[in-house]
């Protein structure tokens, strides 16, 4: 590999690995929301990337306000921004489900078109409110800089923060899905919608909250995203394809699969990117993915229960 010494290679892998972890975190948060929504309602939410952008813009908005009016709160504003991004994206998701998507449940392909239309509307709204230029929030000082375990390795603190955030959100989602009564209703509806209604579950209400939660998680992904890159009106659409890849590769109904596939896709891209150009890295990742999916069409982790 092009004249690098072993210790240099080790450092490259470690650093690119950590860069990959930031990408992994954002992809995982996005994919979690997308997978829950698809599993629950069979709706492929093309506007999911825009809900991420909503989170990112919300964070930017709150950072600007804090900087101008309440500079003393700068060190902690980011936590408030995460919470508000979640709530705001969730609220928008709730409204989108209520006003648009619930009328299309019997026509799954139309939801694809409708949510794509929604994504265009949202992109234009971003452009109108925030302008076409990319924006970045001012990050609190403690998020900047890096940690150096050896002389050659730099691990950015924001990457570690995003990873921590992702772990917490993932654990919360797992808890909600497998321990809460809402999760039980979601899993029942996913398996048999008609029968869930006939045992007394209000499936439409479950749908609405599930969609809101999925969009809210995308909002958190957006807040996390602002620490890694700048946000523009089309940021969401750049990430939606990768997110779909993660969900399909992981197996549509399996959360463990989603985690594993987000990790492998993010790492493959990030490490390859160092040695070859970014677009070639993507080509190789996609090729590998297609070949694996030919042998395992249900994704990495398919559920093994009789149906």
């Amino acid at each position: 590999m092009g004249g690098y010494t072993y210790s240099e290679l080790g450092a490259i892998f470690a650093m690119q690995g950590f860069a990959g972890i930031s990408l992994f975190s954002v992809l995982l948060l996005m994919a979690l929301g997308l997978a829950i929504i698809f599993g629950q309602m069979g709706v492929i939410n093309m506007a999911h990337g825009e809900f991420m952008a909503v989170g990112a813009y919300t964070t930017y908005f709150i950072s600007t306000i804090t900087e101008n009016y309440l500079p003393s709160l700068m060190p902690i504003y980011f936590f408030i921004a995460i919470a508000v991004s979640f709530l705001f994206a969730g609220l928008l998701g709730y409204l989108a489900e209520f006003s648009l998507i619930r009328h299309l449940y019997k026509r799954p392909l139309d939801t694809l078109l409708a949510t794509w239309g929604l994504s265009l509307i949202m992109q234009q709204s971003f452009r109108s409110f925030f302008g076409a230029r990319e924006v970045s929030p001012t990050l609190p000082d403690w998020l900047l800089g890096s940690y150096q375990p050896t002389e050659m390795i730099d691990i950015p603190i924001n990457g570690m923060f995003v990873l921590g955030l992702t772990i917490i959100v993932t654990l919360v989602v797992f808890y909600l899905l497998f321990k809460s009564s809402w999760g039980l209703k979601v899993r029942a509806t996913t398996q048999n919608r008609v029968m869930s209604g006939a045992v007394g579950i209000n499936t439409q209400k479950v749908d609405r909250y599930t969609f809101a939660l999925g969009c809210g998680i995308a909002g958190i992904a957006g807040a996390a995203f602002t620490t890694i890159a700048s946000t523009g009106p089309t940021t969401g659409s750049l990430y939606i394809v990768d997110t779909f890849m993660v969900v399909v590769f992981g197996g549509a109904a399996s959360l463990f699969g989603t985690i594993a596939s987000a990790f492998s896709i993010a790492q493959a891209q990030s490490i390859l990117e160092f040695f070859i150009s970014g677009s070639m890295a993507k080509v190789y990742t996609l090729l590998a993915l297609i070949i694996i999916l030919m042998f395992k069409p249900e994704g990495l982790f398919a559920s093994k229960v009789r149906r």
Partner: protein
Amino acid sequence: MLNVNNLKVCYGQSEVIHGLNFSVPKNETLAIMGRNGMGKTTLFKSLIGILPLSEGSISVENIDVSRQDSYQRVENGIAYVPQGRMIFPSLTVEENIKTGMDVSRTKKIPEEIFTLFPVLHEMRHRKGGNLSGGQQQQLAIARALVTNPKVLLLDEPTEGIQPSIIKDIANVLNEIKRIRDITIIVSEQVLSFTMAVADRIIVIDKGHFIHEDLRDDVNTEQIKKYLSV
């Protein structure tokens, strides 16, 4: 308790249930018998709200449920054990039962359920899909019972189940009727099972009721003739 008035159900343009009238009082078990394709399952699906009715009305204790969604009918006291059991295969037995407890707003599975179905307690951490047919049937009944129904609908509960378990299910149904104030409606093709549980028998044929009898007056030969192909 349950009143059905001029019930008509259509698939698209073709009517398959032609204006049925019946009412079932509290503490009565009604069996609806008929050959395959005569409308038993369609009738049950329209009672629970999976199929819409095109005309007529259904009411439980004078509350009209005809236009309600399934979950609202469950809130108003109808519970449904479908043909083929339809338990949730990848939920555990315990979780399957709990899906019915959203309506009754209780957290803990009532003792009574495990007294009625001891096998479910043994299997409570297994996945529903890995139970035998008879166990799944008991699970489906348990899931319906925890909604605290006033009317319990069972669509062909003996289908595909071995004879010894059929007897158990008959005993359980009689036990449920004894300990709860409940109306039970069961659709059936097996006459011996019907005779063990029902107080009244109605025969359905091509979407019409053609025969009705109290159990004690039933002429089994005649019913058998209706059921033979």
